[in-house]
């Protein structure tokens, strides 16, 4: 049912990653994603993979849960890999690089194709894992809070960062409530014989009217009530507002920062010094001989 859609995939825990300052997490995640696109060789990609593995291990989030975040992109992953394998021709080294050729050369697999396929796949998986680690270890509220803090310099351009963040927090907070509400209204209309499952697109769209109108009505009512409740508690926006939970950078955040900096340096260095050799050796060992 509708309830099964999990939103905000926070996985409760007390690991180092859970306790880190969300601002630092956000910045580091962003930086890591950038570095994923910086790395050009397998050696530097390996550094990213290593860092991802360490992060997963530190987070205490079970592998099963991590795999769940990869599942939705599996098709995209396979599709990109296949496209790369069959349509990227060329070589990453000198010499004979055509690995397989059949149907009189209509289908060819070159080493560059396999190289790019593997490379992109690893990169996408690492990207998804790293960014879902952020949401696994940080509640949506903490994330918006961190975002608000990080974006607060934008105030000088008269952008209402606090208001935007508050809107986001409220929206996130009300998603489960809305899901419950939809379920309730759906049941009530089904009890009056509403048919939501059969019929063509037009009929189905029409069948949604009895659900969306009550939903809109109650959402507006809820919004007014919430606004009133906030006003009653003297909410006047971000001006002069203090926080109950202060975000503080601690020693561990600095340590994580330095570790990530070290890895970043490693990536840059390896980009220069280990071009494609690792991959070529890998290719030689496993493919050339088999074929």
């Amino acid at each position, binding site marked *: 049912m509708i309830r099964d859609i999990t939103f905000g995939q926070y996985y409760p825990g007390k690991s180092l990653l859970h306790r880190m300052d969300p601002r630092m997490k956000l910045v580091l995640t962003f930086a890591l994603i950038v570095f994923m696109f910086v790395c050009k060789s397998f050696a530097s990609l390996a550094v990213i993979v290593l860092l991802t593995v360490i992060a997963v291990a530190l987070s205490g989030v079970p592998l099963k849960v991590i795999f769940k975040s990869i599942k939705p992109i599996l098709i995209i992953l396979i599709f990109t890999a296949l496209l790369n394998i069959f349509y990227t021709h060329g070589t990453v080294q000198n010499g004979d690089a055509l690995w397989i050729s059949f149907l009189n050369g209509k289908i060819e697999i070159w080493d560059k194709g396999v190289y790019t396929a593997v490379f992109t796949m690893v990169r996408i998986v690492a990207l998804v894992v790293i960014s879902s680690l952020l949401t696994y270890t940080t509640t949506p509220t903490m994330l918006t809070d961190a975002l608000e803090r990080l974006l607060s310099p934008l105030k000088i351009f008269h952008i209402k960062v606090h208001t935007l963040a508050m809107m986001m927090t409220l929206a996130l907070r009300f998603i489960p409530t809305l899901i419950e509400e939809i379920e309730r209204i759906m049941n009530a209309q*089904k009890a*009056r*014989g509403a048919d939501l499952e059969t019929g063509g697109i037009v009929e189905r769209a029409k069948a949604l009217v009895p659900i969306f109108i*009550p939903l809109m009505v109650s959402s507006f009512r809820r919004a007014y009530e919430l606004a009133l409740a906030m006003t009653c508690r003297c909410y006047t926006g971000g001006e002069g507002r203090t926080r109950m939970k202060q975000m503080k950078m601690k020693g561990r955040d600095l340590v994580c920062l330095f570790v990530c900096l070290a890895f970043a340096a490693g990536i840059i260095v390896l980009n220069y010094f280990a071009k494609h050799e690792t991959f070529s050796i890998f290719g030689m060992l496993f493919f050339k001989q088999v074929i």
Partner: protein
Amino acid sequence: MSHAIELQNVTYCYSEGTPSQVTALKDINLTIEQGELVGIIGHTGSGKSTLISHFNGLLKPTSGKVLIDGTDIRESKETLRQSRFKVGLCFQYPEYQLFEETVAKDIAFGPKNMKLDEDEIKRRVAVAASYVGLSDEMLEKSPFDLSGGEKRRAAIAGVMAMEPSVLVFDEPAAGLDPAGRKELIKLITDYRNKTGCTVVIVSHSMEDIAKIADRVIVVNDGMIAMNGTVDEVFSRCDELQSMGLDVPEITRIFSRLHALGFDVPENVYSVDKGTEIIRALIEGRRSV
């Protein structure tokens, strides 16, 4: 004659197979006879709403069967569809399901889904509106312009218009003032007297249940703890209290009076009856 509704070994789990699995109903066996008025009571979260959602097939039992008029409602798609019309379910706060431009159109939503013809729909809307006391003028208003109590009645009319043979209410009087509450309970009993329809009411008000029900079912932690007449159930005061329930106030007063040695019966469930007895008692003393 077959039972109006019969549940055979019904078990229901929410979010089955996930860590948050909750067994809301455990092996329920239950029959509701034609023409009965059954009251269901139970503390918050005991599974009353879950139970009644099985009566018209909104929830599919994890195991067990639901029969209406002797046919399994899951026999085919058609029997499931028919079960929605045979058993009218009116949820808690039904006013939040209103959506049409006018009250009349909203009441007609159910009959329309039954694919009835125009004239029949018109007739049913008029009849249902008269049951709940909505004037013609109100029928042409937008449902969102009605007062809370009127909205509630409009929504109930929407279920009545399907002319179900069993009408189920989940806390019909929740959030109404005492007068509105009384009016609503009267409306339901009147409807039942006029149509002879089977009625099931879930309520937190022991007074209301004691006043109108033929039979009371007590649900406790997903199981049926008691099932009997008003007398049978409310005489087990201690057990009810251990389940977080209670007997009507008036019953407590009378059992206390009885214990103090007054010549009054213990089993008094309505204030009207209680007043009568006390008056008789006082007059009896005067005449002595």
